[in-house]
């Protein structure tokens, strides 16, 4: 198992920047009324999805949640069509039918963003089942939050995946909160990875803000899964720098918590490690600037797209 080379590491930085700028833009768009309903942002959690998906292969399949912009982008989905979907445009990923909570690009292996807590975990099991059934080498990876480990579907999914030894990685993004409730008020144990034992499955807790650490752990778990040794539950400790959704100011945070986590911002940490590794500050700045530019250009394109024809609402119910 070799760690990602310099180039790959820089790509991960670029990917994290793109997600960060994308989410910042969504925040603005929501505040100005261009996003309908709700939106759940993932600033601060970029290392989880980028570290994970950059450790996997393009043909691996990913499912995620309503807080899924980062996962979808890290899977290589186009920025403009993602914005387009969130803006409800005809050329959005789902033709405007899905919106912020349902970004999907099947061609890229971004199989779906699900808005019912726990709803996609059994789906991820089925995706892994199909891979095994067809004897492909594909793997299924599934992102979900800490709070989601309390719902029934979590239990059933990990159990079935384990007894069938399916190639699926369960990545729990532990950002300390489910909506507005700190984890310890709803969950009687501290280390969620320990729940894996109930399914005879390895469970690992790691720093989810260390993109290279994430990459390494996922690489190993993926190798196990592809070798037919079954699923792994990986709990990645991270932090949601914004509120839960919409305009939540996250007033429930204890003093100093946000600041402490901002000091461990995954982008900052990765830049620091690259600098220590000899990358020049200018190169880092250039990557950041390029990411920002790409995101802004994508947003402009998406904003210029037309609304869907109202009649298209009647399409796509049945095959």
């Amino acid at each position, binding site marked *: 198992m070799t760690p990602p080379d310099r180039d790959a590491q820089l790509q991960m930085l670029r990917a994290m920047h793109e997600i960060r700028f994308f989410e910042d833009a969504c925040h603005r768009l929501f505040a100005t009324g261009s996003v309908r*309903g709700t939106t759940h942002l993932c600033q601060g959690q970029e290392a989880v999805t980028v570290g994970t998906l950059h450790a996997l292969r393009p043909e691996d399949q990913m499912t995620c949640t309503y807080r899924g912009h980062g996962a979808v982008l890290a899977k290589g989905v186009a920025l403009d069509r993602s914005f387009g979907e969130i803006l409800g445009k005809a050329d959005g990923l789902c033709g*405007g039918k899905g919106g912020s909570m*349902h970004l999907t690009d099947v061609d890229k292996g971004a199989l779906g963003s699900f808005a019912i807590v726990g709803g996609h975990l059994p789906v991820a099991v089925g995706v892994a089942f199909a891979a095994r059934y067809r004897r492909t080498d594909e793997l299924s990876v599934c992102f979900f939050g800490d*709070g989601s480990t309390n719902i029934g*579907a979590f239990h059933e999914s990990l159990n079935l995946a384990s007894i069938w030894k399916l190639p699926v990685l369960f990545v729990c993004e532990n950002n300390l909160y*489910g909506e507005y409730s700190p984890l310890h008020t709803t969950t009687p144990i501290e280390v969620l990875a320990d729940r894996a034992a109930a399914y005879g499955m390895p469970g690992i807790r790691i720093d989810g803000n260390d993109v290279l650490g994430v990459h390494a752990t996922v690489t190993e778990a993926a190798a196990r899964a592809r070798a037919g040794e079954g699923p792994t539950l990986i709990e990645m400790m991270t932090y949601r720098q914004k509120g839960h959704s919409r305009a939540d100011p996250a007033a429930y945070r204890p003093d100093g918590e946000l600041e402490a986590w901002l000091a461990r911002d995954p982008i900052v940490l990765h830049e620091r490690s690259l600098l220590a590794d000899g990358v020049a500050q200018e190169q880092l700045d250039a990557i950041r600037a390029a990411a920002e530019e790409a995101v802004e250009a994508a947003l402009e394109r998406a904003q210029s797209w037309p609304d869907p024809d*109202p009649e298209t*609402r009647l399409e796509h119910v049945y095959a």
Partner: protein
Amino acid sequence: MTVVTYRQAITRGIADALAADEDVFLFGEDVARAGGAFKTTTGLWERFGDDRVMDTPISEQAIVGTAIGAAIRGLRPLAEVMFADFAAVCFDGIVNELAKYRYMTGGQVNCPVTIHMANGAGTGFAAQHSQPAENWFLNTPGLKVVVPATVTDAYALMRAAVEDDDPVLYFEHKGLFGMRGELPDVVEPVQLGVADLVREGDAVTVVATQQMRHRALSAADALAQEGIEVELIDPRTLVPFDHAAVRRSVEKTNRLVVVQEGSAGASWGGTLIAHVLQDGFELLDAPPRLISSDETPVPYAGVLEAAWLPSVERIAEEVRSIVRY
């Protein structure tokens, strides 16, 4: 008399229910410290404390079951299930346990459980957070189903639901949270199963709930300009259903239009039409009309969702065509 929002009326209803009876408690995801995902429980935890107002894990099956267990031991649980769509994850608890418990035991227990949840489309939450979910529950005897459309009903039906000795599903409509209206200082109790005669008229009976009641009223106002006087009925509760009120009206107008959010299949609107036609076949001088949403999930984009919901214009047009039949 104060002017409050529909949201505030719900909160006041819950607060007064908690104050009136120590056996009432409120629980659900983020209802305590956070005051509810829709802020319908703001301030209640501060006022009633940890013992009466509780946050739960994200575990709807456990929430509903806990309500049942507490109810059969004499308490009056008031559970919040946030978006009504999430009732799907605890559907077993609601339809197989809660609705049937009393019956299966030959009447040994009562289940005075209230579950309140945010219903309906129009606010851009897409397919998994926008369903008018009341129709899922109407083929399951044992449940009562309430669908308040006004500030006063939001309050009064909450009180009636909590005081009722049977399971009540209380659907508050997301599209109405910000609507303002007058709430009397002392609200007349409302009985479950009594419709509200919103507007009198002789040309056609229109039956509508929640968001559609308001659109139907706008349509009625427009039609009045043309000399068409609509009689508008809001049943307020789908189970029990005030069939007598609709019958009385149809006897007068001889025409029936039902306006509902959501698709037609196995819906309250279709049920109502079948009922009226069976018992009052000779009453109608024109075909009954069910105005409903498309046979699709709820789409996200503004233009799509707007087209999915019956509009004031569409309601007016269809009512007009029935009156002119």
